């Protein structure tokens, strides 16, 4: 599950990078930047919903819930 989350996150970084690339290259003359930014928003929403589902289903346990401080 952890790997799935990381892979989707990498795809988000990739679409951000592409948006930045087209921001620089197309100089506002194409819709590539806004298109890649839209892709990244959709991916982020999907990832967020997946994380909520995974926590609810117990596939991943947030470390905050373990509440440990060691000494």
């Amino acid at each position: 599950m952890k790997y799935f989350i990381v892979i989707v996150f990498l795809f988000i970084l990739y679409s951000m990078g592409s948006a930045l690339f087209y921001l620089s290259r197309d100089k506002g003359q194409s819709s590539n930047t806004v298109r890649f930014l839209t892709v990244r928003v959709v991916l982020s929403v999907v990832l967020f919903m997946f994380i909520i589902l995974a926590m609810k289903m117990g596939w991943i346990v947030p470390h905050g819930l373990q509440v440990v401080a060691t000494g």
Partner: protein
Amino acid sequence: MTEMSEKQYYVPHTAKWPIVACLGLFITVIGASLKFNSLDLEPTTPWVMYLGFAILIVMFFGWFGEVIKESEDNLYNKQVDGSFRAGMIWFIFSEVMFFASFFGALFYARTFAVPWLGGEGTNLATNVQLWPGYEAVWPTNGPADVNGRFETISAFSLPLVNTLLLLTSSITITIAHHALRANDRKKTIIWMIATVLLGATFLFYQVEEYIEAYQHLNLTLKSGIYGSTFFMLTGFHGLHVTLGTIMLIVITVRLMKGHFKAHDHFGFEAVAWYWHFVDVVWLGLFIFVYVL
């Protein structure tokens, strides 16, 4: 060659802002080093830093105000536009490196340093000799139990709300972006205002979270490696959201004044990209700091 000789590359000859920026940075750094090294120069110490910040703020408004005016006066040709875009790339490169260093510190501590202290791999002697009985778990303030017991913020509480707020703000700014490209100014402004409000609400809850951490959980900047990485990452992210919100407000006011066109809106697009970047950093924080 027509593009190159479209007009001359605009160079302002009486630019006073670079020297003001140098002065502001110099005073800020001097003030900060006086303050953080706890030199006993009260009550001057914090005020030197604040004076530096004040100069920087005046510089930003003055300099960017001039740039906006020059842009609206059509003094910039395509070459200048290219320079701005190249500048954006370098700026983002520095931002990525900045956050990579703090995320890197977090990963290094969690994956290597803490397990080594717990005796992982060939480091059994380290554990036995230096920190006998220390068990490597995360979160930890380290084997010396720096600053005492603490609790962490649950991912299910405020961080979840904040993730939802920032994600929603990314959706609203994307709607505004599409609207601007479709030349629908009114729709763009409405969705930009929504984005600003969501960003401000995020900041409000972030302050609430810090108050909770400091007053009830004993989680502070001094709570060992967890406290340091937690507050450095979320704190600098919060600073970026603050700056991003100010940038969004400026862009919204410019839209109201009639700036930007459907195919000529670098200022808008750069700020929109920056806002997406800030949201992605938060998503990374939510995943790696709060959840995993």
